[in-house]
């Protein structure tokens, strides 16, 4: 079974619930709606043998509605096939169901998404921040969070300050130039 056959099998079982299936360089992606997430996830694991959740990522499409996107990257060990599931959620809703009972590795991925993007996962056994400390008031990967950060203060735990960004952010620019010119530096962008 390859990714294409997996999609066909999914399509049969979830008639009309898969939206824009795309194929790019041998990678198959389809969009689902948040309500079907757990059913489809369980089906992918049990029937299609996508036994490995590679990663969960999230996107903030700031200014669009629905605002957030969550992407599940699945891999099948027995068939060496990839499958990518996308779903969109609005800011008001702000929560989807967990898949951490289906793929235990999702536990920390979902915590990271909660930490960085502020999307909640219903039914998650331990939804705490994973990188920033409990009580940090912002979600740093959101598009409306400034690059320099925001000041915060939690006595005896941690504090943050605004980072000076004179000369622009400290970045490299993709090019074919030599390593000296590709060095990350402060650049006006």
């Amino acid at each position, binding site marked *: 079974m390859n990714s294409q056959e997996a999609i066909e099998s999914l399509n049969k079982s979830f008639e009309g619930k898969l939206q824009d299936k795309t194929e790019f360089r041998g990678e198959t992606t389809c969009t689902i709606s948040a309500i079907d997430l757990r059913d489809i996830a369980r089906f992918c694991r049990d029937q299609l043998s996508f036994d490995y959740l590679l990663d969960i990522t999230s996107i903030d499409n700031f200014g669009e509605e629905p605002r957030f996107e969550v992407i599940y990257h699945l891999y099948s060990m027995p068939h060496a096939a990839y499958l990518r599931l996308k779903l969109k959620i609005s800011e008001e809703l702000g929560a989807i169901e967990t898949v951490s009972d289906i793929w235990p590795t999702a536990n920390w991925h979902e915590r990271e998404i909660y930490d960085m993007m502020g999307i909640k996962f219903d039914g998650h056994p331990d939804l705490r921040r994973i990188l920033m400390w409990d009580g940090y008031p912002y979600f*740093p990967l959101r598009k409306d969070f400034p690059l*320099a*950060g*925001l000041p915060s203060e939690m006595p005896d735990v941690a*504090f*943050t*300050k605004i*980072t000076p960004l004179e000369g622009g*952010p*400290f970045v490299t620019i993709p090019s074919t130039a030599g390593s000296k010119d590709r060095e990350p530096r402060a650049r006006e962008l």
Partner: protein
Amino acid sequence: MAETHAAAYDSKIEGNVIFTRLDAALNWVRKNSLWPMPMGLACCAIELMAAAASRFDIARFGAEVMRFSPRQCDVMIVAGTVTYKMALAVKRIYEQMPEPKWVIAMGACASTGGMYRSYAVLQGIDQLLPVDVYISGCPPRPEALLAGLMKLQEKISRERAFRNQKPELVEKLEEMLA
């Protein structure tokens, strides 16, 4: 010890007596036995380990006794990126070190935040601790750390150790002598 010379008079203790200033003696003792607190937070810690290993051998400068208890340390080597989450922990460990104590900021991150101009990274450990020596580099080579250590030794050898250690006693002595 430049200001030390053997007593040269004909007696049984000849050669066993030296004259020096108290400060010079104290500083000499301190600077040649700097026990570091290895505050290894990122890749600089690898270079710190290399500096302690046989090729670079920080033991040549009396600083080989890396202590993982701050209560036995003289110099904190902040080696790596100090995140805001770690910052107060670093400060707390520094505060647990007994006086006299010194701080080396090793590498770009510990000195200024380095390439991490980020919401999550403290922009230099000198915002929290009094830093004695900054070492440039990303990460600095072990030689640079050794050079920094020698700089610190130089700095220590110029300190007024006795006055700093026992200010009341010095005052009393000065009164008595006046």
